[in-house]
């Protein structure tokens, strides 16, 4: 157990163990990878009912409410115009137009609230502190995600106001005298909520959710297959310091006012590269890929335009089996010059196996964009 001792432990680790979790090391944390249902069962459960994920390993950061202009120097996002009670997806870019991390940015009446990836947490906070005054790393709060078509119905008995929230709302609500920071968002393609709450009440809250027959605990294994089917990028795979947001298919996150011709065009790291790619195209692009056979093609598989050509045109960045689709799925990064309907081949165990390019997501998302 020495290796595990070197890792950080989730505040709800004892509950996960009681629920039958298998743990794996991930980004310096000991994380539940699956419970009794197994990855396939947990994936399907989340698509049909509601899955509870412990994502307390992610970094939570508060900034002063007037830090929006300073934050805009680090992200190509329109933060200044972000309305109160709303959240936006963002990216920390670097000077060469790559990505340091992706994050969520919420505006509350009294602060900005960020959620960053566990693996990048320390670097992100140092990066923020170098450019923004008043950066506060949140401690003592767990982060849970409740995801799936029955998430609202399972959460509403505890927090009735969530029925009035829509996709990407971020609000404070009370439960048992404690303040929950709730956003209607997630990483599965389903409707759902992400809930930051004091560690002291996290177990009681999680048990209250799990007492609902519609809710099952879900591990990192299904989190990955769910996000892949939803076409959602993972930092370190679809995005990296050498892949631009335009190449990663994340150009939609770049605010109109931050683009060429906008009132606050540029002014973020790598703006020259990224704005040029928006105007003139990027060298590579993200591709949704369906292997034609049953064999999953995973990260690092080289992609070719024919069975015998020598030079690969890209690689698979994430791949595996999509339980809802009942077939393998993959995301790739390929040369932008490859036509969108061109058949591709992945080299697996010395054989070239065909893949079809497809639009993303692989499975339709269930976001609740209006409360009507």
């Amino acid at each position, binding site marked *: 157990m020495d290796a595990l001792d070197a890792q950080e432990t989730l505040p709800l680790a004892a509950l996960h163990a009681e629920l039958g979790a298998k743990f794996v090391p991930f980004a310096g944390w000991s994380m539940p990878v699956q419970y009794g249902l*197994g990855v396939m069962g947990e994936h399907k459960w989340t698509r049909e009912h509601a899955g509870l994920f412990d994502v307390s390993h992610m970094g939570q950061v508060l900034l002063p409410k007037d830090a929006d202009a300073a934050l805009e120097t680090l992200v190509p996002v329109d933060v200044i115009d972000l309305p109160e009670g709303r959240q936006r997806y963002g990216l920390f870019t670097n000077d060469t137009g790559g990505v340091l991390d992706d994050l969520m940015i919420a505006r509350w009446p009294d602060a900005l609230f960020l959620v960053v990836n566990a693996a990048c947490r320390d670097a992100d906070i140092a990066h923020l502190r170098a450019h923004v005054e008043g950066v506060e790393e949140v401690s003592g709060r767990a982060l849970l995600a409740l995801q799936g078509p029955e998430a609202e119905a399972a959460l509403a008995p505890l927090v009735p106001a969530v029925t009035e929230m829509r996709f990407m709302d971020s609000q404070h609500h009370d439960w048992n005298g404690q303040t929950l920071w709730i956003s209607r968002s997630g990483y599965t393609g389903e409707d759902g909520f992400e809930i930051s709450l004091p560690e002291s009440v996290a177990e009681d809250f999680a048990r209250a959710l799990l007492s609902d027959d519609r809710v099952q605990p879900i591990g990192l294994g299904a989190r990955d297959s769910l996000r892949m089917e939803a076409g959602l990028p993972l930092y370190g795979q679809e995005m990296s310091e050498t892949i631009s947001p335009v190449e990663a298919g994340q150009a939609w996150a770049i605010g109109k006012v931050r683009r060429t011709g906008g009132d606050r065009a540029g002014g973020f790291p790598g703006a020259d590269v990224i704005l040029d790619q928006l105007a003139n195209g990027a060298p590579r692009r993200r591709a949704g890929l369906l292997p034609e056979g049953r064999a999953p093609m995973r990260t690092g598989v080289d992609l070719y335009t024919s069975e015998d050509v020598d030079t690969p045109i890209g690689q698979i960045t994430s791949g595996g089996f999509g339980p809802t689709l009942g077939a393998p799925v993959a995301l790739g990064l390929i040369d932008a010059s490859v036509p969108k309907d061109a058949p591709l081949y992945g080299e697996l165990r010395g054989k070239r196996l065909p893949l079809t390019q497809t639009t993303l997501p692989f499975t339709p998302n269930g976001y609740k964009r209006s409360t009507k």
Partner: protein
Amino acid sequence: MKFTEDHEWLSADGDIITVGITPHASEQLGDVVFVELPELETQVAKGDEIVVIESVKAASDITAPLDGEIVEVNDALVDNPALVNEDPTGEAWFFKIKVEDPSALDEFMTEDEYKDHIGE
């Protein structure tokens, strides 16, 4: 029945040995979604990677436990890989291999020794 350190079970009928993976291995793999079997009538050498198993979590393989010839493969696994999780020691055998020297099986673990090996 005999067991290998790679979590295969071996069941002998004369010089024909049926090979599968143990319930312990099937549980560790998680939900199996893809199986690739060796070609019939292939001569294989001990240690050759002759079966590919992909679960939702990862890819792994089964090696030939002994030198021999593949005389039968279980095509049902190709169509229904989940059998590996449902019935690893029954319906989910992978292949049958004809060996020259069945006494070579003696080198493998008994069930009790295998249980010790996996700490049960």
